[in-house]
């Protein structure tokens, strides 16, 4: 079911499952890119879009979910 989601939703789900909820648990952009099989330009664009919407934070080339992002991710299963 999650595989049927669009790429933005898959990125949010991946961060939640891997427990990337703070800077010390953040995923680096390269790991995200490999897991989601995305090109450089595309991953940057999606990170910026989700960051602008308040779901995640990109800091020093690492990415983690905000509290809003955590709720968004798990609301899929509630």
């Amino acid at each position: 079911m999650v595989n049927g989601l669009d790429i933005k939703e898959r990125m949010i789900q991946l961060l939640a499952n891997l427990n990337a909820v703070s800077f010390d648990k953040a995923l680096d952009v390269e790991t995200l890119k490999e897991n989601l099989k995305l090109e450089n330009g595309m991953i940057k664009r999606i990170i910026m879009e989700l960051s602008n919407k308040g779901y995640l934070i990109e800091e020093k080339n690492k990415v983690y979910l905000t509290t809003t992002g955590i709720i968004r991710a798990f609301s899929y299963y509630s």
Partner: protein
Amino acid sequence: MKVLMLTWEYPPRIIGGISRHVEGLSEALVKKGLEVHVVTTDFPGVPYEENVKGVHVHRVSIETPAPDFPTWVLLMNHYLVKRSANIANSIGGFDIIHAHDWLVALSSIEIKHFLNVDLITTLHSLEFRRVGAISSPFSRMIDSIEWWSTYESKVIIVCSGSMKGDLIYHFKIPEEKIKIIPNSIDNSKFDIFVDKSAVRSRYGVYDNERLILFIGRLTSQKGCEYLIRAMHYLPSHLNAKLIIVGDGYMRSDLEREVFSSGLGWKVKFTGFLPDNEVIQLLKSADVLVVPSIYEPFGIVALEGMAAGVPVVVSNVDGLSEIIKHDYNGVHVYPRDPSSIAWGINRVLSDPNYAQWIVKNAKSEIYEKYNWDFVASVTTDLYKKVKGKW
């Protein structure tokens, strides 16, 4: 009596309705003299251990990364078991385990067998109704865990008669094993003064316009797309705007539909809002619409009733039980934009009617839905299960 309350969400981690339910119930049980330990998952910026209004809240961190959500749930349950065992050792065990939904079923069953303590489970909704049919491997797993939790529990608590019917139909559970205890809300939160004009203008709704409010997760279960489509059927003289509070995986699709159908200036998405802001919006709205396709209870309808806003709901499940048509709210057909528009118009075009249903709703909510009552019934159930009744 020492109660172990297991839940995957507890404020400020508010994913769905379980969080506020467990909070309200736990605080009310403490007022009845019970010792309540909530074991739940952590949330950034919140202490791992705290006492909130007498409730011992223990939050666990899921340290192990998971490749997918089912594995995440298994790991979460492991950490819930570990923390619960530590607490049991330090306080001399528990008298009852009260679990909430399938997400914590595995830990609750394991702890029950380890500690030899009776288990009660509240099922807040059922997978076969959430997804319509048990077809995917993921749904099969959830459905199976839900059944397992009913088998292992001494009593199953559900919030409505429709949920009880679903359980009997789907899992063939003996009727006497199921107890209906309604949800509730803290009515006092709504006894505040709100500058309606100021609140409405914050969301771009002005005094000559009507505010239609939706609050909920933006998932298919909540039926928000049918409410958006209903905006096309509303008479233009109503001058209505729709504010959508909440977030979820359908948000992008809904936003696309709004803009592609020319409703951009009439519909606003706010995302998640804090509780106090939601209450202010509820008290400033002209109508609250709950267009759900499946809703075992529908706590948001109670919140609307408490806030004094007319409530229009889909005629489904628990919503049909809370709201009586043309008495304390309005029923509309689910998945039917023209019916939803009819219900909104019914309320907005007749202020006397709207006032009447609000008055009926308010008196009913104070009588029927309060945590003190829910805690009394739950305490009696605990005693009965423990054989002390």
